[in-house]
């Protein structure tokens, strides 16, 4: 059946075929039925702003498919991407639980399916389903460790090329596909967005990637990047 943005839409969490693979959603029938009763399914094109840093928390978004970037901005207007959220992640949970404004903004970078749960409903859901609390705590803990990893990279890297190498190695570990040519990465981010992930400028990222290519550390074909010499890249990293 045709669907908006060619997404494979799943309206019923109980029938979701990938639920067992998802950290938050992989719960027993009672918790999943309750989740189904409070969530609203939405389909979003690329570039949709889900919530904005500083906005009062309206609730949480469960990312069923697609990806979203979480960003924060300095008072000077400089933007930093703190995380690229993957399917299965719950967005806006910490602000919703604390009752404090969203600490980051969330914007889809691919067409996405998201299930929204209003704040009051989410808090009631947590109060009545200990299993959902466990899964939310695990999800939040993973987010915390991911933030720590980024802080480590930002805080300990001596140079921008080291930060970029660290980011590419991280992508290799988390989604790289080993091929005969090297480790293949699907890069859907622009140079501007990569720059926002490591706290530098678009021009620097473009220059460094050209530099990596010249040194035969990477090769780029369309949206695919091949890490040709992982060992050489690891030598750049002191973290």
């Amino acid at each position, binding site marked *: 059946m045709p669907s908006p943005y060619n997404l494979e839409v799943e309206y019923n969490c109980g029938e979701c075929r990938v639920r067992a693979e998802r950290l938050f959603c992989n719960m027993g029938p009672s918790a999943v039925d309750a989740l189904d009763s409070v969530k609203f399914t939405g389909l979003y094109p690329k570039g949709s702003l889900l919530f904005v840093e500083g906005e009062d928390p309206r609730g949480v978004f469960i990312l069923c498919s697609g990806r979203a970037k979480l960003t*924060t*901005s*300095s008072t*000077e207007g*400089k*933007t*930093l991407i*703190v995380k690229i959220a993957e399917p299965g992640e719950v967005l806006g*949970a*910490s*602000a919703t*639980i*604390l*009752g*404090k404004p969203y*600490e*980051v903004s969330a914007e889809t970078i691919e067409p996405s399916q998201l299930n929204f749960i209003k704040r009051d409903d989410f808090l009631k859901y*947590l*109060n009545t389903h*200990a299993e959902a*609390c*466990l899964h*939310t*705590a*695990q999800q*939040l*803990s*993973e*987010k*915390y*460790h991911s*933030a*720590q*990893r*980024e*802080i*480590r990279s*930002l*805080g*300990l890297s001596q140079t921008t090329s080291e930060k970029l190498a660290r980011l590419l190695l991280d992508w290799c570990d988390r989604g790289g596909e080993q091929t005969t040519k090297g480790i293949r990465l699907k890069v859907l981010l622009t140079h501007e967005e990569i720059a926002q992930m*490591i*706290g*530098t400028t678009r021009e620097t990222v473009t220059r460094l990637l050209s530099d990596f290519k010249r040194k035969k550390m990477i090769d780029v074909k369309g949206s695919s990047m091949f890490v040709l010499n992982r060992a050489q890249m690891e030598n750049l*990293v*002191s*973290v």
Partner: protein
Amino acid sequence: MTTEALVQTQRSTTIAAELLMPYERVEVVPPGTVLFREGTEPDGVYYLHSGEVDLRFSSPKSGQVKSLLLAEAGEILGLTSVMADRRYDCSATTRTTCVTGFVEKHQFLRLLEEKPALWLTVLRMISSNITACWECMRALGTAR
């Protein structure tokens, strides 16, 4: 922080202290004591009754050490490692004389099953840690 959020935080801290009390091993710890080390398996959580604890991480290659967060009274340390079942990714060292209450991992997890009231406290504490990390990232990543 809004008044509602502040009240909730204080209430959460009180609930945590009351629920953990029967299970904790209370100790007075001098400044400079390492409660846990980065890279080790989490054996439990530390409820910080009083004092301040530095959370730091280091580079295995260069040995360079950086401060991550400063934990204060009312916080539970080691929580995210126990919940995510992964090694501590920072070290915790007391900055001042501290009173800590250690609860073993299996006891803490059992307590969560038996006392659901503790859940919201746990979620609030982890959420606060994430907020602090993102603030730290903003400061580091947008500084130049």
